[in-house]
């Protein structure tokens, strides 16, 4: 019951924030083509981070709502994603020194998100990962 209610609230808050994000992203990308280079354009292109802050807020609220086991499992998935992404970023940084192509920061986020998603699913089947 509590789990379903928590999930329902999370989906509403997360969904609302993501919908707002898509609107702001679309507007900022469209708007930026009509604005000259400068601080205004930079802030306009940075504006999708406002709804992203709401997404983070929704996630933190969800972490507070769920019980200790679910919270621990979620945070372990985040920690695993952080560690693997750090390893990837460091490795790729050295490879760039060896002449490999430079990757944007969006790549780092993509790797983090992918590992986060995979580790969340995997943990559902093999918790604890190690004991």
């Amino acid at each position, binding site marked *: *019951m*509590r*789990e379903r209610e928590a999930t329902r609230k999370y989906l509403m808050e997360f969904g609302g924030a993501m919908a707002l994000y898509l609107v702001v992203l679309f507007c900022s990308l469209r708007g930026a083509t009509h604005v000259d280079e400068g601080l205004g354009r930079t802030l306009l292109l940075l504006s999708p981070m406002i709804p992203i802050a709401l997404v983070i807020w929704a996630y933190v609220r969800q972490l507070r709502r*769920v*019980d*200790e*086991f*679910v919270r621990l499992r979620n945070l372990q998935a985040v920690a695993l994603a952080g560690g693997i992404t750090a390893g990837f970023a460091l490795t790729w940084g050295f490879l760039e020194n060896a002449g490999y192509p430079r990757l944007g920061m969006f790549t780092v986020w993509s790797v983090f998100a992918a590992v986060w998603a995979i580790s969340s699913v995997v943990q559902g089947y093999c*918790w*604890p990962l190690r004991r």
Partner: protein
Amino acid sequence: MKNVMRQLRTDRGWSQGDLADQLEVSRQTVNAIETERYDPSLPLAFAIARLFGKPIEKIFFTEK
């Protein structure tokens, strides 16, 4: 740790969902405790003991 939570629950004819609702945790948490993949925190262990009307050490114990 070992525990007898599953036995105590089934003795009362409760499903994992019933127990989860009473403890205000998720069903997967009850499942993880019953299958001994997760040891609950002290507050949750006390809540479980209170619900079943038994001392904690009669529900949770180390393997001899």
